[in-house]
């Protein structure tokens, strides 16, 4: 049980911990949520709730083992929600302990990981809507600022903002592994 011992970690410490320890589990978490929850329209909300609960707990005390904690949190959330909505038999929600989750294989060396990541980013960028992709490429790769992007593309600054925001969110989905666009390709 988390214990209250005066002041917990600061918000920014919790966020650093979250980025370092929890975010890399996103593909696993998404896999778990998708396998156990039929309505795909709920998945993003569910993910947010899991993260919120995990971070709330971490404000008190960091869990000793992050992965089991995240998955248990997800499972409890699904069970509560299923109870409330009476949609899924509770037994149907897999226990992560027994679930056939992708095993922790020793990672390939960093070069391979990075090349893989580069491919993912390339795929991610290629899958953005054309104008959105153009704005992101100009901004992130060519290093232009918003005003310069607007000039180069001949569109309003407001529209550039929208393209950039959309692109940032879409890249996060892909890089954190919700949509493995490169999966299945050789």
């Amino acid at each position, binding site marked *: 049980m988390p214990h209250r011992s005066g002041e917990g970690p600061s918000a920014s410490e919790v966020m650093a911990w979250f980025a370092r320890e929890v975010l890399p589990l996103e593909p696993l978490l998404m896999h778990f949520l998708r396998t156990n929850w039929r309505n795909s329209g709920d998945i993003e909300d569910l993910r947010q709730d899991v993260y919120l609960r995990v971070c709330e707990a971490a404000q008190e005390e960091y869990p000793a083992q992050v992965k089991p904690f995240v998955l248990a949190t997800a499972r409890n959330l699904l069970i509560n929600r299923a109870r409330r909505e009476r949609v899924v038999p509770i037994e149907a929600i897999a226990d992560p302990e027994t679930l056939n989750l992708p095993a922790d294989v020793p990672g390939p060396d960093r070069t391979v990981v*990075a090349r893989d990541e580069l491919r993912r980013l390339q795929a991610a960028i290629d899958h953005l809507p054309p104008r959105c992709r153009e704005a992101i490429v100009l901004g992130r790769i060519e290093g232009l600022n918003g005003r310069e992007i607007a000039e180069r593309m001949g569109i309003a600054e407001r529209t550039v903002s929208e393209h950039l925001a959309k692109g940032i969110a879409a890249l*996060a989905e892909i890089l954190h592994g919700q949509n493995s666009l490169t999966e299945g390709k050789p």
Partner: protein
Amino acid sequence: MSEHFSDDASDITAQAADWLQRREFWNWNEADQAALNSWLDQSLSHRIAYTRLGAAWTRTARVAALKTHGPRSNVAESLSRSKTFFRLAAAFALVAAVGVGVASYFQAPAEKTFATALGERKIITLADGSRIELNTNTVLRAQLGDGHRHVTLVHGEAFFDIRHDAIHPFSVVADGHRITDLGTKFLVRAQSNRLEVALMEGKAAFDAADGRMKSPIVLVPGDALVVSDNQIHTMQRTAKGLANELGWRRGMLIFDNATLGEVAAELNRYNSHKLVLADPRTAAIRISASFRTGGTEDFSQLAHVLLGLKVEERNDETVISR
């Protein structure tokens, strides 16, 4: 931004993405930061969404070092500041200048020297509203005032944004050549027996300072000119190529299909910690990449992580080998 307490995840993500792009791409002041902080303080979910997007965005920085060259990306342009540049310049050679003429020298009334250290940039604003931006490791001597508008680029690189004044023409002397503005924006780089001039806007005349050219070359926007080994080559650059060339004004160095050797040489212009490529084969690897001018570490990380090269830190240099 209006108060917003919605728990809807996609909504929060959209707001976080908007904050992130605002901070990343637009003018950002203390008031903006305060507004962002207060949004973050509103709820832990806001903080989580922002952290999540920020973490992915940071990862794109690491890989953004390699540019996309897919068929659908229209960013391909194979000219860079360097050998490629020179090779193409040579291919479009127009002038091999030999000639005799009359030199018109100017006498300097009062001279002032401006200099930048390694990695430093400096902007000089003249009384007439003209601006001169000095890049890293540059020395410029100026004779200004009293109707004089003459500068000498002793070494380094400078971008000129000059108000035209027909009565008091502005001239730059670099490496024995003179550029006289006819109302323009242009870039001059003088470095180890090689002079480059690129014109962004307006018009300028290029002449040998000792008058050995028969007539000046008139530069129009997009023109680039390289003087090396007493040969003058001119060529047309695209707007994008020129914009890349000026990346340093934003603290960025942008390369299209350049060799590691060329990239390292560019970065070394800005940093005392030098990048050394151990062998010619390593130096010949081609990349397309963007770096911050201080991005020596980004470079060695890219070399190691993406290209699988060995990176060895020594006292004040990083040695990269196969």
